[in-house]
């Protein structure tokens, strides 16, 4: 019994100290900004900062994060006003990972009808596929710490009413956020329905670095095609079609 009481006491303590800085480079679109706002709303342990000016010197992000007393960082980097990259990093000594954000639907889309408390904690579900490779095992741990809400954080409420699900399919990480619902009509006492809250997005990992925004490359995605190349290929494909028609 004494042991159990000790357990209880330990559970009251605030031990898992995670603080995540979320901010972006200049030149992100309004949609990206909405997405960033969504993440800030969903992560009560997040902090924000003004837009970051320099694209060339990404290592300076570390200083901003340390000034803000954060041990995790999500940094959005916009390219050409259409492509959005998302960096996720452990401050100060890494690792860090760069993702291309694809298939983005923000929380403001009306077809996503769920809702949850501001500051409540999410359950985190990972697809077993993450365990199949060392790179994704590492990413799983990073996502857990950066996106999960730590118990006991001053701004985190001790309630659980939504779930972040991460699936690894097609070499991409698919993110879904569901509200946990007890359906009223059945008078049920247990959660038996999910309603999607959003946002919805895919993270296509580009590269994992050993340091925070620097250091050696630990892993590089062999299947990654840059969005520029993708567009060029699509354009060329169209040209081929036109040529065929002409012939």
């Amino acid at each position: 019994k004494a042991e159990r009481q000790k357990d209880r006491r330990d559970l009251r303590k605030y031990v898992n100290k995670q603080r995540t800085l979320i901010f972006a480079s200049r030149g992100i679109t309004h949609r990206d900004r909405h997405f960033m706002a969504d993440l800030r709303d969903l992560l009560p342990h997040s902090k924000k900062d003004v837009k970051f000016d320099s694209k060339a010197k990404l290592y300076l992000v570390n200083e901003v994060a340390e000034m803000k007393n954060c041990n995790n960082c999500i940094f959005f980097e916009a390219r050409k006003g259409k492509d959005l990259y998302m960096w996720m990093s452990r401050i100060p000594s890494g690792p860090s990972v760069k993702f291309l954000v694809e298939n983005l639907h923000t929380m403001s889309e009306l077809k996503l009808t769920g809702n949850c408390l501001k500051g409540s904690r999410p359950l985190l579900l990972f697809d077993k596929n993450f365990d199949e490779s060392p790179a994704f095992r590492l990413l799983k741990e990073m996502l857990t710490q950066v996106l999960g809400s730590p118990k006991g954080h001053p701004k985190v409420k001790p309630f659980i009413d939504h779930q972040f699900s991460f699936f690894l399919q097609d070499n991409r990480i698919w993110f879904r956020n569901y509200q946990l619902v007890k359906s009223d009509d059945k008078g049920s006492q247990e959660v038996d329905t999910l309603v999607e809250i959003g946002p919805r997005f895919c993270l296509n990992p580009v590269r994992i670095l050993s340091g925070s925004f620097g250091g050696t490359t630990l892993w590089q995605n062999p299947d990654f095609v840059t969005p520029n190349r993708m567009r060029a290929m699509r354009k060329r494909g169209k040209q081929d079609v036109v040529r065929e028609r002409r012939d």
Partner: protein
Amino acid sequence: GDTEKSKPATKKNKIDVLGLESKLRDIKLPEQFHWVESLAVTSTKPLELEDVHDDLKREAAFYTESLKAAKICLKNLKQMNIPFERPEDFYAEMVKTDAHMAKVKAKLLVERKKMDATA
């Protein structure tokens, strides 16, 4: 990006397994942490989809897997005697505002009317 261009093409397939594993050990949450600190679970078997671009089937599979995990997690929390439900009289700000939810409802109504009209 300039960093990508400067890398020779031979480095394309780089995997540093030892490096990845040592970094994982560096950042892992301490073993003695209770599960409730992170609330993270992994499914028991990998999700296999025939075609990831089949939206309906994909979302259905995601939903089923997610609900299964949620039920187990919440049951475990109850068994551990860890409260997680919001009391009935606890009101607080929601992630989506009332105005936003009103719009969502309005749209649902319109859609239902459309369905009825065609039916």
